[in-house]
C-alpha cells in the first residue's frame, strides 16, 4: 500500500521565531489585531509505501528524526491520510 503523509515541522515552543514575529506584526498592520502566537515552520507532503497506516507513520517519524526536523530546534507532527 501507499499512503499520503503530511509532516508539519515547527520551531520548538520557547525558541525565538523571528519569522513568526514579523508576520504577526504584518497581520496587526493589516488590522488583524487579534492574531497572536504566530509560528512559522514548514509542511512536507510525501507518498510512503508501507504495509499499513501505522507503518507509514513510523517510517515518516524516522525520516523526521534523521532529516526532516532538527531535534535541537524543531518539533514535528505526522498525519497519514486514510
Amino acid at each position, binding site marked *: 500500500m501507499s499512503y499520503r503523509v503530511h509532516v508539519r515541522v515547527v520551531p520548538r515552543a520557547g*525558541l*525565538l521565531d*523571528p*519569522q513568526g514575529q514579523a508576520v504577526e506584526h504584518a497581520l496587526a498592520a493589516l488590522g488583524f489585531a487579534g492574531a497572536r502566537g504566530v509560528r512559522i515552520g514548514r509542511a512536507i507532503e510525501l507518498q510512503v509505501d508501507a504495509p499499513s497506516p501505522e507503518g507509514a507513520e513510523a517510517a515518516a517519524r524516522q525520516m523526521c528524526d534523521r*532529516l*526532516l526536523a*532538527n531535534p535541537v*530546534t524543531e518539533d514535528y507532527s505526522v498525519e497519514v491520510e486514510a
Partner: protein
Amino acid sequence: MLRVAVVRFPGSNCDWDALHAARRAGADSYFVWHRDTGLQQADVVILPGGFSYGDYLRAGAIARFSPVMQAVQRHAADGGAVLGICNGFQILCEAGLLPGALMRNDRLTFVSRPVWIRVERSETVCTNAYPRGTELRIPVAHGDGRYVADAHTLRMLEAEGRVVLRYVRGENPNGSVADIAGVCNPAGTVVGFMPHPERASEAVTGSDVGAGFFRSLVAWAPAGADRVNP
C-alpha cells in the same frame, strides 16, 4: 608539511579563500569534492562557508549526508582536526559533530560586516595562536547564525570550556545565546564558528588579524601524535 583538505559542496563559496589562507600559513592545502570518499591523508579538514545544497531544508542539513562526510566523521573520531567556518559550522552541528544548532538571525536580515569577537579558548587546533581573551575584528556573513542549544548543553559547554569564540558584548549580530560565536568538541580538535577569518587573513583584504587561525593549524601538535608526513 601539514595537509589541509578543503571540502567543496555544491554551493560552497569560501572554498578558495580558505584554501589560500591555509596555503599562506604554510600548509599543503587542496580541494576534495563532496562525492569523494577519502580525504587524501589530510591532517586537517576545513568545511568552508557558503550555501551548500542551496541551504535547502535547513542550512547544512543535506550536506551532512554527502559521501565525504562519512570520511570526515571517521577522521574526527580518530582525533583528526576539523574546522567548520560559517556553513561549515552549520554542517558540523547538523552532523552531530558539535552540539547545538544555528537558526535564523533574530532580526531576519542577512548580516555581512566585521564584528568584534573574543577568543575564549586558546587550546584548540585553530586558536592556539591567540592568547585567551584576545579580541579580534572579523567579518561575519550569514542569515542563519543564531546559535541555540538546550540548557543542559549550554551548562556543559561553559563548564568544559568549549565556547571557543564569543561576540564581544553589544556586538552579537544574530541573537546567539550567551553571545556564542563558536564551539568545539572536548579535545578542541573539532571546531566550528560563524565568523570568517579567511576573509581577514591578508593585508590586501583590509585586515590580516584572522591569519592566526590558519597559523594555529600549522603550529598545532597534539601530545604524543606522530604527524610527520612521508
